[in-house]
């Protein structure tokens, strides 16, 4: 570690974040050191257009080392090549590139392609030169997250037509006897989000799957910059529907840490409670949904009914079925604890019904047999590609932000990071059940306590150019926000990373060797958000 710090040009500490700025030549070594020697997890990677502040782009790679509540953020400055004031646009070969980490740290591969699409910074030696976020018809040399970018009318028109192919996208092709391709989507048969899947199958067996996502890309990060910090909460709630509360909690946490606001005990307890309520309805819904994948209609219907009860509870407690409109910068906007009795009584009913459902599911051989050994995600792949949440824990990686970086009430609660070794669909279901029981006991523990303080602690002025991380464990895995203020305390940059962005790349590895009819089952067992991933 000292060797790393010695190489640093600039070190800045902020709470549990350590920003280590390194020279271009050391960037790869520094990251490789954390990844290989310290077993660090790549939490997120992003760029910022700081040309108006420091005259350079900055690439950040955020690592955290297991067992240490600390984030190591390796920062690399990229100077724009000097060119005449009204000179031509950047052309290929201009040195606006950074050393790619992908070859050593496969988890970085999507982040780097995203940075290339959004900022036009080229990850040198990245094995995949294709676009990630934007499809063929998006105008070339258009980089939305640069500060001086706005979509022109002609670009908007070209994009909308969807005809002009400027950067053709080549699906990876498998060649050989008997291989055929099955294209699926973006409009699917069920009531789900849009995405395209290209299967290369041999008979019934999936040999290779390439998902093509980002159909629901809505320019969320750019939109954050035009909102104030307070209004940003509403947008954070709408990044991924069923993780509304986790997203807004992570966003609020980032802004609060930047302001230096500390939540009252009561607000912390309420936020923790609602985070667990969100996990609860998601996990029950997911367990029920798996039954839709195996054709066990009774299980599906029973799961849906329990989920509906929890959604109605959400509505009664907060006025929103998706727990929206509760989080504020500095606290929460509604009294939660007067509803304690109601939450308790619903939990009693839900616990009983859920036990009955599990008895049914575990006792149905035809159901369990489909789940066992299906969609196996190996520990190695999960680690290399940086899987998070249930997907990682079911493959034996005990990564849970609630443990690794305790926040809110989690350091005062007694619970485990539940893991399984098998990595198949059944393991993911069992991790969900264990998590769910944890959530129920956490909710009960929190309801038993008495808490001091106001609901909202109020806000403070934001120091110029302040920046901070916010994070939480959502139902699908770790959620990260990184926010930065401009000179006047307005929004300069918001980077968000939903767990689905980390977990989508592992899906093709999990379905390899399975039969095509089991794909929906594998997909449901991960239950990834398209909107959260596409942003």
């Amino acid at each position: 570690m000292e060797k790393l710090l010695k190489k640093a040009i600039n070190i800045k500490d902020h709470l549990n974040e350590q920003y280590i700025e390194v020279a271009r030549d050391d960037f790869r070594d520094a990251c490789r050191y954390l990844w290989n020697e310290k077993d660090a997890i790549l939490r997120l990677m992003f760029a910022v257009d700081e040309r108006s502040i420091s005259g350079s782009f900055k690439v950040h790679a955020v690592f955290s080392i297991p067992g240490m509540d600390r984030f190591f953020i390796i920062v690399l400055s990229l100077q724009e090549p000097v060119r005449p004031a009204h000179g031509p646009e950047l052309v290929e070969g201009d040195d606006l590139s950074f050393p790619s980490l992908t070859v050593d740290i496969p988890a970085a591969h999507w982040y780097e392609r995203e940075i290339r699409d959004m900022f036009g910074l080229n990850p040198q030696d990245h094995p995949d030169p294709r676009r990630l976020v934007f499809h063929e018809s998006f105008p070339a040399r258009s980089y939305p997250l640069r500060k001086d970018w706005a979509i022109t009318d002609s670009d908007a028109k070209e994009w909308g037509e969807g005809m002009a192919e400027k950067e053709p996208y080549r699906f990876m092709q498998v060649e050989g006897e008997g291989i055929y391709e099955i294209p699926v989507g973006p409009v699917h048969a069920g009531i789900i989000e849009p995405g395209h899947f290209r299967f290369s199958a041999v008979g019934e067996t999936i040999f290779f799957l390439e998902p093509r996502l980002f159909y629901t890309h809505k320019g969320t990060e750019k939109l954050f910059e035009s909102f104030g910090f307070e209004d940003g909460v509403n947008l954070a709630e709408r990044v991924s529907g069923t993780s509304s509360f986790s997203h807004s909690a992570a966003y609020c946490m980032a802004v609060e840490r930047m302001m230096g606001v500390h939540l009252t005990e009561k607000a912390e307890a309420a936020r923790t409670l609602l985070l667990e309520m969100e996990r609860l309805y998601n996990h029950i819904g997911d367990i029920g949904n798996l039954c839709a994948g195996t054709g066990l209609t009774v299980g599906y219907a029973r799961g849906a009914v329990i989920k509906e009860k929890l959604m109605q509870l959400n509505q009664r407690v907060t006025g929103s079925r998706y727990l929206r409109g509760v989080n504020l910068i500095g606290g929460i906007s509604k009294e939660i604890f007067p509803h304690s009795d109601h939450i308790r009584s619903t939990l009693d009913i839900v616990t009983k019904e859920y036990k009955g459902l599990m008895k049914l599911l575990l006792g149905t051989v035809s159901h369990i047999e489909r789940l066992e050994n299906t969609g196996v995600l190996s520990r190695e792949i999960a680690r290399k590609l940086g899987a998070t949440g249930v997907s990682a824990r079911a493959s034996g990686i005990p990564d849970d932000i609630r443990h690794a970086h305790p926040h809110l009430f989690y350091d005062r609660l007694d619970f485990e990071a539940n893991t399984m070794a098998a990595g198949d669909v059944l393991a993911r279901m069992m991790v969900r059940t264990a998590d769910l029981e944890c959530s129920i006991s956490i909710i009960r523990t929190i309801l038993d306590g008495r808490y001091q303080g106001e609901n909202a602690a109020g806000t403070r002025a934001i120091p110029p150019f302040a920046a901070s991380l916010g994070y939480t464990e959502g139902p699908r895995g770790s959620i990260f926000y990184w926010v930065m203020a401009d000179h006047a305390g307005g929004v300069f940059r918001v980077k968000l990373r939903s767990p689905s962005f980390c977990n989508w790349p592992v899906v093709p590895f999990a379905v390899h060797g399975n039969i095509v009819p089991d794909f929906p089952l594998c997909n449901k067992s991960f239950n990834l958000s398209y909107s959260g991933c596409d942003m």
Partner: protein
Amino acid sequence: MIKGILKNIIRRKQAIRFPEEFQVPPDQELEIVDLKKKIHAIFRRSLRIRQVDAGSCNACEWECTALTNPVYDIQRFGMDFVASPRHADLLLVTGPVSRQMELALKKTYLATPDPKLVIACGDCARDGGIYKGSYAVANGVARVIPVDGCIPGCPPTPTAILKGLLDLLRYTRKPLDT
């Protein structure tokens, strides 16, 4: 199984209740009966819905899925969600229409046989909602395909969607199958 049924009969086990705040008042119940007639008249007893996600955050989708659960049970009105636009009478579109979904939405619309209805479901679908003005969205379904009605809400509750569908049918007077 027979034992279970008997047990339920003896215990008079109740069906899952409709959410309290949505209990349908008696006069509205009449409307639902009326609606059934309408569906009979216009769509010959069945309204088939194709849900299309055009960039929504997924909350609207889950509310549509909830419509098919035993609590809301949309099938009892003669409506159901279908797997292909080719089977659909109505497109229920959610989301602000992200630019990368625009083409797919247009194609879905063209693939739906006439006569057809289009409903924009949710605030985003109406005018872009919170995403209005972003470079990557088309600010509402109506900018891309013709829309017959909107269901507001972020997301609209299953009851709101149900009621919206019912209202739409009530005001659709033109006989569609000419």
